[in-house]
């Protein structure tokens, strides 16, 4: 099967399947579409700059405004300072304050937003612990559109 969009003469090198198409066109045939009606914000909490970039990239592609911090304590402080988010994506393994304790402290502040716990490797015991600490869902990395799309639809409808 030949790939689409094999056009020449475009030095900017975008990865568009059909250049010049209307803005509503899908970015690719694998990307579940979610057109947000509301302004949604997300916080990414991950010790790895690489993971922060990938997760923020995905959230931004869906139109969310994002912030990121690289440790648990920074996340707690940010929330304590009054920052509000619709979604928090939090790694279990974090420097300074681990993901479980960070989640507990955020919940203890009365924050009710959607929290998505992530980990590199899935152990059932860890999943139970993270859920008990207060995340709403727990997934193994990587965060993908298939996982994110239903969450975003749910948040957008609230």
């Amino acid at each position, binding site marked *: 099967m030949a790939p689409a969009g094999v*056009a020449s003469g*475009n030095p900017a090198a975008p990865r568009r399947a059909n250049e010049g198409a209307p803005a509503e066109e899908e970015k690719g*045939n694998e990307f579940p579409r979610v057109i947000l009606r509301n302004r949604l914000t997300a916080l990414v909490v991950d010790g790895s700059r*690489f993971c922060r970039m990938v997760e923020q990239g995905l959230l931004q592609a869906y139109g969310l405004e994002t912030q990121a911090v690289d440790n648990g304590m920074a996340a707690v402080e940010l929330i304590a300072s009054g920052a509000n988010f619709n979604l928090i994506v939090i790694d279990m*393994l974090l420097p300074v304050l681990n993901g479980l304790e960070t989640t507990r402290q955020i919940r203890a502040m009365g924050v009710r937003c959607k929290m998505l716990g992530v980990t590199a490797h899935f152990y059932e015991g860890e999943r139970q612990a993270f859920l008990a600490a207060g995340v709403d869902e727990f997934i193994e990395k990587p965060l993908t559109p298939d996982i994110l799309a239903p969450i975003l639809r749910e948040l957008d409808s609230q």
Partner: protein
Amino acid sequence: MEVGQMQGRLVDYTKSLFMEGFLDGQFLQLQQLQDESNPDFVVEVVSLFFDDSEKLLNDLTMALDQKNVDFKKVDAHVHQLKGSSSSIGAQRVKNACIAFRNFCEEQNIEACLGCLQQVKQEYYLVKNKLETLFRLERQIVAAGGSIPLMEMGF
């Protein structure tokens, strides 16, 4: 070589990386995050992956070289590497990490050392492949062409 031929060569090369298991669907998803507002996303994210991974491989080498190996530390590093390799779509590196973690749990030093070799090998292979991929892309852009969008149905 004209642009169409270069694009064909890029497509074939990319396909081979998927067929041989070096990359998986996650890499395609990352490519789809790249657009005019974020034109160098893939190259940037891959370069962060390289930096991250090389640091982790160094840390792992040191950790396994200790008189009394701290397997918790080793496991934490492998855990990180598994997370980043699966997030970039480096399938073979990810799989090598999974095997590695099993031996960490068993606290088997010899096996861990073997796994470390394996992970390093897979990492350097995929690094080489990705660098080649980017070089092919740069050649196309330099010749005035655009990068063909890879689709999943090949």
